[in-house]
C-alpha cells in the first residue's frame, strides 16, 4: 500500500490533518513519506498477535484527585495570546454558513 502512496493520498491525509500544502511540498513529501512508510514495513517481520500493546512506559492506573476549586488563569491571562479577541471572548469566523443553514 505505502509503496504506492500517491499525491492524492497525501492530499487526503493533509486535509485530514488540516494542513494546506504548496505544490512543492506535495511533490517532495509524497516520495519522502512513501519511503518512510515502506521502511516501517520492517515491523511485518514480527508476529506480535499475542503481544499486548504498550501505550506508555509507566503503566500506572488512573490518577484521580479531589474535585476541589483551585486558582486558575484569569480572563486576561487566558486571552493574552489569542490571535483575535474582543477582550471577553476568543473570536472565530462564522461556523455556520448560509448553505448549511438553508440546507
Amino acid at each position: 500500500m505505502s509503496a504506492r502512496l500517491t499525491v492524492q493520498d497525501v492530499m487526503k491525509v493533509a486535509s485530514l490533518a488540516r494542513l494546506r500544502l504548496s505544490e512543492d511540498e506535495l511533490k517532495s513529501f509524497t516520495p519522502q513519506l512513501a519511503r518512510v512508510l515502506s521502511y516501517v514495513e520492517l515491523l511485518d517481520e514480527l508476529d506480535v498477535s499475542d503481544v499486548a500493546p504498550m501505550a506508555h512506559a509507566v503503566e500506572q492506573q488512573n490518577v484521580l484527585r479531589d474535585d476541589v476549586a483551585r486558582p486558575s488563569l484569569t480572563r486576561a491571562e487566558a486571552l493574552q495570546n489569542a490571535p483575535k479577541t474582543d477582550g471577553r471572548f476568543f473570536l472565530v469566523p462564522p461556523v455556520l454558513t448560509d448553505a448549511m443553514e438553508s440546507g
Partner: protein
Amino acid sequence: MSLTAANAGQLLSLMECGDASAVDVTQACLDRIAAHDDQIGAFIHVDAAHALAQAERVDARRTAGASLGSLAGLPVAVKDILCTHDQPTTCASRMLRDFHPPYDADTISRLRAADAVILGKTNLDEFAMGSSVENSAMQPTRNPWDITRTPGGSSGGSAAAVAAGMCPLAVGTDTGGSIRQPASFCGVVGLKPTYGRVSRYGLIAYASSLDQTGPLANDVRGAARLLQAIAGHDPRDATSVQVDVPDYTARLETPIADLRIGIPREYFSEGLSDDVAECVREAIDVLRSLGAQTVDISLPHLRYSVAAYYLIAPSEASSNLARYDGVHYGFRADTFDDMIDMYCTGRGAALGAEVKRRIMLGTYALSAGYYDAYYLKALRVRRLIRQDFDRAFEAVDVIAGPVAPTAAFKLGQFVDDPLSMYLTDIYTIGANLAGIPGVSLPAGVTTDGLPVGLQLLATPFAEETLLRAGRMLERETTWHTRRATLES
C-alpha cells in the same frame, strides 16, 4: 580559572567563598553569549535584565546570610519548549513566534525555587522534531567544535550553549535521543531521566508517552545537581511518578564495586563508524580497568526500534499538535474562506516541513484502515523492545554503547532525506520507548577533533547508577575538561 570554563561545583565554591558573586558569574556568561552567539546561534532569547536582577537577589541574600537553594546563582539555559511566564516560548516555530505563556513549567518553578539564574531560551528543532536543529524556524545553531557541523538535536541549542562556555548547566528534553545525541556531538554530559521522573507540566508536548526533561552540564556532578533540582512528583502531570528522589550527589564519588556492563552486540554492528566504535570501546576499557565486568548481551528487537518510534511519535504528535488551530493562541492567517480553511491556511503557513511530515505520518498511521497495521502494531513491538531491556538488566547494571553512529555531521547533510536522518537515532530511541534512563558522557575525540559520547542505560529510576558510573569514567579521563575554542 575562567568563570565560563568552570563547572557548577567550582562556581558554587567561588560564590560561597566570596571570590566571585552571582552577578560576576552571570555577567561572564552574558559577555560570552554577546561575543560568540552571533556565530553559534545557541539562544533564541537572552534575558540579560531578568538574569542580572536574579543574580543580584542571590548575592544580597547570600550577604545577608539567608538560606539559598541548591543552584543559587548558577546560570542555566533552558530549551525553548518549556513554558516561562516572563519570557517568550516559541518551540522554534512560526506558530508560536509571539507566544507568552501565562504560567511556568514545573521544571522552571523548580529552577526558580533552587535560586538558579535563568539566562534565556535555547534553540531547537521545531517542536523538538529533529536531530540537528536544522528544523528550527528561527536560526541555525552551529557546533562549537566545528561551525560547519550540527550541534545535534533537538536540544542542540542547550548542548551548544554548554559546550561554548555560555553556561555550566542547561535543560533539554529527550523524546528519541534529543538530550543524549547533542550532548555527544558537543562533548558535554546529557542525561535523559526515567519517564515520569521529571514533570512534563508546561513542557510543550511532542510525543507525550516519550517526552522527558533532563539536564545537560559540563560535568557529571553538575548534571546530578541539576537533575536533583528538577526531579520529583508533580500532581499536575498525571504521568509523574510518586517515587522518592534519592540524593544524586551523596555517593557520586563512591565507585560502583563490580559494575556489570552489558555490551549489546547489536550496538557494535553494521552502520557504526570506526572512530566512534574505537572511542566507545576505549571508554568501556577504562571502566573495566576500574574493576567493572563486561557481559555480552543481545537486544534482538533493537533493529525494529526506529520503525516503531517513527509510527508512535508521529501519531502522538498528530494528536498533540491538533491544538494549533489559531484560536486560543498561535498563528492565524490574515485571509481565509471559513473556519476549516482558517485552520488549514494558518497551519500550512506556520508549521515547517518536518513538523508537517510527522503530523501527516501520524495522521496516516491513525486513520481508518491503517490503525491496526501501523499504530497498534508499533505499540506491540514497543513491548518487545522493553522486554529486551528487562531481560538484559537481569544480568547487568548498565548497558554501554555509542550514542549515535557518527560524530557530529555536516549541516545540510540530510536535507531532503528525512529517513536517513531518522536512522541515526537507532541507539537512543530504545530508551524512550522503554522509558528507561540514559546518559551521554564525553568519552573521546575523532581524528577530526570532534567529541564522541559514551551512552550508558540503566533500569527505571537508576539515574544514580548512571551518574556514579559516569563519575568513575570522568575521574580517569580528561575529555570533560576540554573546552571548544571559539573565534572572536
